[in-house]
């Protein structure tokens, strides 16, 4: 089991190294452990997150392609779909079995066909288009829906802070 996971992770790493999509960098934290990756995600343009670079941790389970990995932003960022502890809540990271709210369609959820690249791309699109229906951070949801300027201002300040300004 672990072997399959390792093989696949290695393949994915190679693939990412060969041609990674713009705005995304991902690699294992250390060379001995392929199951924890560090990612850098660029804030997509024309969004409040523009100009920010966000650090995230990808943790893969031992039965990796069968179960989805866990993506956590370190530090957490203000976003309707990101929990306060930085954990990302998007459908592609949920295995088909566990969807308590039945918000998501089966084909939107995790399947072995997905990959690290797809996950990170989804996260980028999540940053530009939050999904309010299945919000993880209720305050951010309300802020995003009712007071967009304030939301953008808070995001901007946190980006500036993260960049050390």
């Amino acid at each position, binding site marked *: 089991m672990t072997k399959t996971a390792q093989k696949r992770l290695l393949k994915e790493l190679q693939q990412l190294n060969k041609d990674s999509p713009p705005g995304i960098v991902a690699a294992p934290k250390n060379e001995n452990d392929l199951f924890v990756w560090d990612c850098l995600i660029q804030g997509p343009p024309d969004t409040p997150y523009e100009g920010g670079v966000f650090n995230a941790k990808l943790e893969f389970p031992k039965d990796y392609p069968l179960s989805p990995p866990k993506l956590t932003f370190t530090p957490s960022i203000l976003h309707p779909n990101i929990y306060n502890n930085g954990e990302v809540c998007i459908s592609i990271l949920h295995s088909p079995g566990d969807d308590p709210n039945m918000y998501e369609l089966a084909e939107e959820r995790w399947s072995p*066909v997905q990959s690290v690249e797809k996950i990170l791309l989804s996260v980028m699109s999540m940053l530009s288009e939050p999904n309010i229906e299945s919000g993880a951070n209720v305050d951010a949801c309300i802020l995003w829906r009712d007071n967009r300027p304030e939301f953008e201002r808070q995001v901007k300040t946190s980006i500036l802070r993260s960049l050390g300004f």
Partner: protein
Amino acid sequence: MDSRAEELLTGIQGDASTYDDVPAGASCRICRGEHTTENPLFHPCKCKGSIKYIHESCLMEWIASKNIDITKSGTVVNCDICHYPINFKTKYAENMPERIPMSLLLKRSCISHFFRLKEIITIVLAAVLFLIGVPLTWNFFGKLYTFILDRELPYRDDFLKSIIFGFSSAPIKEDIESSNILLQMVLNYRFSILQIIMVVILHISLYFQYDMIVRESVFSKMVFHKIGPQYTKEELIKIQLKERFPMMDDETIENVAKIMKGREEIRNLAQQENNHNNNPDNADNEEESDDEQENANQNEEQPGTENTNAFADEAVNESQHESNAGLDSSSILAEQDSATESESESEVEEQIEDIRPLDAFVHHRAQNELDELLDQNLQAAADHPAAGPEHIPVQPAAQVLPQAPEPIPAPRIVDEEIVNDIGDANNQIPQAPIIINLKLKLMNVIAYYIIAVVLIAVYLSASYLLPTFTGFGLLKCYAGLVKILLSGLFQLCYLLHLPRFYATSLTKIPQMNVLDSMVKENIIASCVKIYQSYNTNAMKSSVILRSVPALVSYTTTISLINISSELICKGFGRENGMKNRSRRFIFQILFAIKCTFKVFILFFIELAAFPVLTGLMLDFSLFCPILRPGEIFWAPRLCEDWPPSIFFLYWGVGTLYMYWFARYIGMIRKHIIRPGVLFFIRSPDDPNIKILHDSLIHPMSIQISRLCLSMFIYAVFIIVGFGFHTRFLFPVLMKSKMLTIQNGFLHHFGVDSMNPKWEISVYPWPFYIAKQVIESTSSVKLYIRKYWTRVFDVSSRKLRLSSFMLNNDIPTERGCILYRNWFYRSFARRKAQWSNSELYTSPKTASRAAQLFKENKAVHAYFIPDGILMRVPSSDIISRTYVQTLFVPVTKDDKLLKPLDLQAIEEKNTRNAGEFGYLDEQNTEYDGYSIVYTPPNFRSRYILLLVFVWLFASLLVLTTTFASQFTFTLIAAILVFPAYIFAYVLANVFLVKSPSKKHYEVFYNGYITVIRSNFQHLDIFFVCFGAIALALMLERYHQLSMSRIKLEEHIVPVAIDGEEFEVENLHNERVDNHSENQIESWGTILKHVLNRDEIKVVLYLTIMVIMVWLNSLGVIVNMEQLYFIQGYFFHDTFKGYRGVFNGFWNPSSLQTNACFTLLSIHFIYTQGLNFAANRNRSFFPLFRYLLKESLRKLKFMLYTTMPIIVSWLACSTLEYLFHRERYTTFGAPLVFLWRYRLKSEFDHIEWTFPQHLCYLSVTAILATFAISHLVKFVKKWFGDATQNVKDEVYAQGRSLENFTNDNF
């Protein structure tokens, strides 16, 4: 090696060869591994691109992780991405023979069929037993118990007959046929199923009511009011402490409890001071602080008294603390939790030290011990964070205790299911325990049925046999009582010499005689008759009379429960808590039942009886006079088959009416009148409405009287509002039949439109469609609202109520104009008003005006102010108590003219509130008043306003109705008439050889009558479609006027600026605008309408009906051939029985009807699915799609019937060619062969060769059809069976197979 195996092998090799097709660089979509010979890649589904390929092992792993067992044959796994079933191939054992041996095949298929059969039998048995058996068993037991109660059988010495036919209302024939029995069984079944449904609904609703009541917070308060707390506060604290610290000894607990008590008292003191400082004039707080004052007094005494005294004080104290007891104890616990005993603690200690040195010492030790324990606890919580959450839930439960001290709620909070289970058991719903965990085994089904039978027997004996039996006894008792009372009354009458007075009055007053005889004949005689017949058992068959004894015992039981619950709690109260646990429990159960029945009765009246009565009145005043002028009620005739259905009908109609009425009120409340005018009608967003809460708290009599009052108002609205027009104005005053319905148009086509069943099934549809269409047009709503705004404006101005109704203070309304005399008043108003140049600026009093009239001859009118300013509610959601302080006259600057009699209001409130009135908490957030002007005779003006509104409503309804009808009649006359004529002419010219003039005349006259009758009666279809047409026209008008307004808006700046280039720009804009507005043209409006779901459904239904008709026509043509074949071949055999066998396959026989019905069901099913799939398409694509589908079906039908038709045509042509001398026209032989050849009257005509050929060829074609189908079916069955056997016997797992396009 046999050829099959060879085939398999080559297949495998073929697969192997395809591995080579995998391009280099392709990787598995799961493990991203490459293609190797030992782990090849497959592409088993429709996916393409980088995820096309997959390893078998990876796929298996993925499937296994989804918990799907792939080894089972027949399991289908769909691809996650393309949803196409993944292609598997079953591998078979090497030793599989080429042909499966017949014996094995037979054996296997027999076994599988046996299991299928068993399954089917089980399902059928279950269905029969539970759907049919249970109601019939119910019926059986019901009748059995009735026999027991009667102590005789309805049919002497014939038990079976009595069971089946007993107590049926239908007349019994002497000889019993099987069809009779069946019919009676069906009747019994219907009766019982209705009873079962009613019983189940009753139990479920009672149970839910009970549950809701027990959960309602006010219920526990009421219980508390009745029996007080179970424990005093000190005991409570002790119990809590024991729960939290099990290792603490009793003595310490006692001491800790004392500390807590002391601390609490101090807190109370502080709080009381706070209260005094912060809000000294808040009434609620004042009460509280009064309580606390007493507390404080006691507290002050306390230090001096002995500790034992403090205990006694505590008992008293406790009850006074009640209002904040929960709060305090919870705060204590909170403090314990946080373990921050700091300042207050030290205070307490000081205080306590004052009390007694030794005690203080003891207390101090206890305090330390408590602290230690708390620390331990906290430590433990910190050590085991998981233990924390477990620990916390205990506390809320404990905190609830002081507020809800009864034992029921506490376990309920912890474990709801137990209560639910008990509730279910109490309900004794016979089926419930069986449906849950239903296991379909043959024996289980029977066992469940037996359980159900026993349950029914027990339930019926408990709910029917016993109550009726006791009811007999009770009735005897009551009758005896009544007898004694009556004889006493008679004695009294004689003593008072009443008979003598009566006799004298009979002789003196002539009307008295009539009254006397009426009373004697009608009332007393019927009462006596019923009593006598009851006594002599002559009225056994009446359900109502049968239920009397049972009802008597039920009501007796309920009243006993009421009385006993009152008796149990006698002597207990808030101050004097009931200590005995079981007694408390019994009281709570009884009290809950009492409340349940109270609330149930109220809800029943409001939710069931109210709408039914409304429906009845609507029938009387609206439906019946319109549909059946001259009768009293219309619905009874509809419900002749099954009288109880009238309740459902009335209920539905009444509910609908109430809903619409409420919507109307809501519209007025929201958009037109001042908020607060309709404060007496509940608003849906009123936070003060807590229905359950209210009906629990308020006394029954007040609530019933309230309901009766609103029912009365409703009744007046309906009976006068509608009935005036339908029953009085039009038929009596105007002698017009305009308000009656006569569907002349349909009548012309021979539809029996006076059949109530027809009416109820057809009339709602045009209404519904019209409603939907009209609601989709926004302008109608707008204009109706405008109309009502105007109506309210005008009528309140006339009645000088603008200030009150609309919050529109018009100075001229503040008084009336006094004219010199009636001439000026009625004829020269204007002139008189103009004669006084300062009419409104210098108002006069009435006496002064009279004087001035004499002095100044030129002035003919003076303004005389009257009326008063009044406080009125400014919001609809206002609390009841607050309303009572309103409607008082005030001055301009809101000073009361006379002081409010608050005392009287209070008294009235308490009088009306009943026992639990103080529990009524009303939201006072929205309380507020505004000051409006009210003219004199305010009440009658208000009523007059209602009359005005009614008049305008009648005007609106009547005008729109008549306008719709006339419009549509005109449209129909203009559009339909030419088309009609055209069709008629066509039909006459081409179908009938000699069109006579008479035909035209008849037709023309009929047409004219229809049109004319439409100007004399209502026609629902015309009204509804006319309304649709009018609504569309209004919409169009609205669009046009809106666009004009927009245009004008654009023109205005041009006029102001006058600059050249802007005009240019504007011109362009105008054009754009114009075209933009044009979008909402007739086409768009029509599209709006057509795209509504209802219209689509109608379209679907139409097409479906046509398709069913065409399809069944095809089938019937095919089936008719059977009739020919039968007639041809068995012509001689059944010569003597022609009469019987002629109808074997008669086109108009039962079989055909059955065929038609089956086909329709099939069609409705498939087309319904189809519609569900396609409902989102818009109208025109949908229409095209449907047309295509229908054409496809038609083509298929033609293909199947074509050979037969061709053969018929060919044979008849042959016949015509060979025997031309026999026939007049070319088509004649066809008609002859089809219709007459096989009839016995034509036996004498000689058979010719083409005739024989005709029937033979038909037979051959049908036989070919039949045989080919049979062969196909057998082949398929055989193939399936073989495949099954192969899968079951020889299968050895499955392997992946590549997807190819020809895999379909």
